[in-house]
């Protein structure tokens, strides 16, 4: 039996929906969620060993969701940081302008060595608020840190012109190699510092999920879990959340 604090932005909603609907088969005796938009969570600061909402807009968001304005991470056995800008979109931001040696060589993009591409990706992901929070909380105590990156978007993203990176990756045949770069970046970032929970079951390929996991996706509202816009390919539903929660639950039994 263990306690778990799940902290993040809109991607927390899928986990909360699973928990609230009783879909998540976990061994936790206590799970608390703290969620707010990324721009507001920038104002979650460390004060006297606690995480404190230092900004009025963040406090108002917390009030709406009945969160306390501060929390002591050491009260929990596991701290989970979810979403908060750490995900495949950062990889695509790099990919649409640059390619690595092991990728298709486009004249319209700039070449980078694999080493350089990988370092840039680690840097981009390391600058996410998710990673910033993990570093802040790690300094506070011994709570086990776990990272749940943003989910891989629905494979429908390949035909979404507003996110051209995925379509480019498919056209170029770079899906698998991008998956390798992404996995390595996550490994570099988390090694020795945080556990990584990224369920493989929903994946349709290395960088997308099966559409059923984003169908009926949920977002942050007063009950944390109201349905999202159908066209949102980047947020997942309670079924996905249940898979994440089950994986989270298994961590204490595997690690001491």
């Amino acid at each position: 039996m263990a306690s778990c604090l799940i902290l993040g932005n809109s991607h927390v909603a899928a986990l909360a929906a699973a928990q609230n609907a009783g879909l998540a088969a976990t061994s936790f005796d206590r799970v608390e969620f703290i969620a707010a938009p990324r721009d507001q969570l920038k104002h979650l600061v460390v004060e006297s060993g606690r995480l404190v909402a230092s900004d009025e807009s963040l406090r108002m968001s917390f009030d709406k969701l009945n969160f306390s304005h501060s929390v002591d991470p050491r009260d929990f056995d596991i701290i989970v940081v979810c979403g908060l800008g750490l995900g495949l979109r950062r990889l695509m931001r790099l990919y649409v302008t640059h390619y690595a040696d092991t990728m298709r060589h486009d004249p319209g993009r700039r070449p980078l060595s694999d080493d350089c591409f990988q370092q840039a990706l680690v840097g981009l992901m390391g600058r996410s608020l998710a990673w910033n929070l993990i570093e802040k909380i790690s300094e506070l105590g011994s709570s086990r840190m776990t990272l749940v990156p943003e989910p891989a978007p629905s494979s429908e993203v390949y035909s979404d012109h507003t996110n051209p990176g995925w379509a480019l990756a498919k056209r170029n045949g770079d899906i698998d190699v991008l998956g390798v770069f992404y996995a390595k970046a996550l490994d570099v970032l988390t090694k020795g510092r945080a556990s990584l929970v990224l369920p493989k079951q929903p994946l349709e390929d290395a960088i997308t999920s099966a559409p059923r996991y984003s169908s009926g996706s949920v977002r942050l509202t007063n009950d944390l879990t109201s349905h999202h816009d159908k066209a949102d390919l980047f947020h997942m539903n309670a079924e996905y959340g249940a898979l994440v929660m089950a994986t989270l639950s298994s961590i204490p039994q595997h690690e001491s």
Partner: protein
Amino acid sequence: MSDNSPYIGLNKRSYWKTAVAGGMSDALSGIYRPRFTISTTDAVVTAGSCFAQHIGTNLKKRGYVVLDAEPAPPGLSPDVAKAYGFGLYSARYGNVYTARQLRQLLVEALSDQPTRAIAWLKNGRAYDALRPSVEPNGLPSAEDVARHRSAHLAAVRSLLEQVDVFVFTLGLTEVWLDRATGAAYPTAPGTVAGSYNPDEVRFHNLSYNEVVDDLNAAVDIIRNLRPSARFIFTVSPVPLTATATDDHVLVATTRSKAILRAAVDDVISKRADCDYFPSFEIITGAMSGNVFFEKNLRSVTAQGVKAVMNTFFSSHGDVQHADRTQEFSNPEDQSDIKDSVVCEDALLDAFAKS
């Protein structure tokens, strides 16, 4: 003493006693009178030996438009970006120590021929012999080197189409040439990558005439493409780390710098669009008493870089540094300029027996 000597009544800056012996502030006053000004809207391109990195960095800090045709990808920290050759100059050409390298780069960038890169090998990885330091771990193959080089040359070409002011710092006359192609390398094979084979490369010490020819050719190439381009040449004050001649390294350094300095003088004396900025004199002049060199008597101190750059900016009418007296009062002040340039030449230190 005659009262009608041509030396009577000259400007204070013309006499050693009043211009140099009086100390740093006197020496720097009027040491540089630009032939043309650089505005903050001029597109500046920088290239040259390691010391030139300071020029680009400081121009950017002061709000000048320093072109960067190959910016670092998002995510790279400044230190890592620098290790991959990003942000050091206006493109990732690495250090261009010689006028021969500059000429060669321009010719190659504007050539219609397919890129024929020369790859040096190290631990199974391939390095661009003409800029071996821009990929610290090399690339998988010679084909990759050629592909990267081709993209790089396209970036250089785009620079040349936009440049208003080209700032080039000459560093060396000593150069290693590929016997088969005549290509001038920035460093000897075996220093960063590759291995030295006297059947493939030969040492050459550029003569005065060769440097003049190379500089004039470089200016002509750029002006053909960009007729309004202007040029500022400087000579790096940084001595040779090692010489491949049989001379003492100090003698070799003096020869090299003297040739570069004289060659620049020849070029600017015949071209109104070219100017010389005396960074060499500011750092090595007797008035500095070597305070502008680190303990190794080679690397330029942050204070030295500051003196050079403040002279440059104040001479170009940048009033923020019109009063320089404070800047030389505290030799411990290394402030914001750290000597963190990327320099293949410095690697030669490792070959010296202690």
